[in-house]
């Protein structure tokens, strides 16, 4: 849906990392490198970003 504000497991703020991650990965950078540089160390926070399906635009007209 929309990227969660925080990591479900540890509570680190991950929402702000997603737009940057999506932009850089779409430009061909390696997801591993981008996550390292954004500063997401733990695998709980990394899965929040890599497993996210951004579907908010699909439900926009239904508001």
């Amino acid at each position, binding site marked *: 849906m*929309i990227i969660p504000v925080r990591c479900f497991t540890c509570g680190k*703020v991950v*929402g702000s990392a997603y737009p940057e991650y999506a932009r850089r990965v779409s430009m061909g950078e390696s997801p591993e490198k981008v996550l390292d540089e954004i500063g997401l160390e733990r695998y709980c926070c990394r899965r929040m970003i890599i497993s996210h399906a951004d579907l908010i*635009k699909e*439900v*926009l007209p*239904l*508001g």
Partner: protein
Amino acid sequence: MEIETIEMGEKKARFVIRDTSPAMANALRRALVNKVPKMAIDTVEFHLGSMRDEEGKEYESKTPLFDEIIAHRLGLLPVPTDLSLYTYKDKCVCGGEGCPNCTIIYSLVKSGPCTVLSSDMVPLGDPNLAICDPDIPILELGDGQSVMIYAHAVLGTAENHAKWQAASGVGYKYMPVITVKSSKRAQEIADSCPRGVFTVSASGDLGVEKPLDCMLCDSCVEVDGGESVEVVGDETSFVFSFETDGSLSAETMILKACEVISEGAKAFSESVDAL
């Protein structure tokens, strides 16, 4: 108890505590997670109806997310907290009505199409109270959609809700003590370590370069059953690390956590004396 700082940043701390027990290390961990208060948004008012911009275009206050989901997302935003300025709302001089000593009010007025970010939350009064991380997406708005929200942040602790938890990834491990007994299979042992703790010198000697990175996994011991290296955890020293969400600095959090522990211990000993 002795503290040696390895890294003390604004949002990240890593340090060694010596001459202590697992109970003390765990008390510090629990205090950091649960007992250090911070500000978080607790009440959200949604204003419904339609509004018109300067060009006469009409916006309806509707959103693709349910109001309660938006309120929940607002609650999780990191609100900058100065612990010397704020008190708990129910213990405040205003008697729980809400005043500048216990409440921060934010307004959020935005019309689509756009992504509403945490930087769109405008604090009433001091602009330094803007949300710590400006780039968190709160919701998206389509054409003709708008939001008008007032949000009230109050002081609380994570005993009541995780939104008041400022620390994340709080953890500690026994201080690794690595003894090299022989360099016979140096390269093999250096390669077995997933954390790259060992180095092999030009003359083939096995050295311990980054002992603090060791996670006591015993991969190096398993190479030859402990012939070359011995790894044990020192049960009186701990490598401690945690991060904060930015609402409090790492240093403030440690000081506050220690204060909470000593206050708790004092209160406990007083109630024991009263028996």
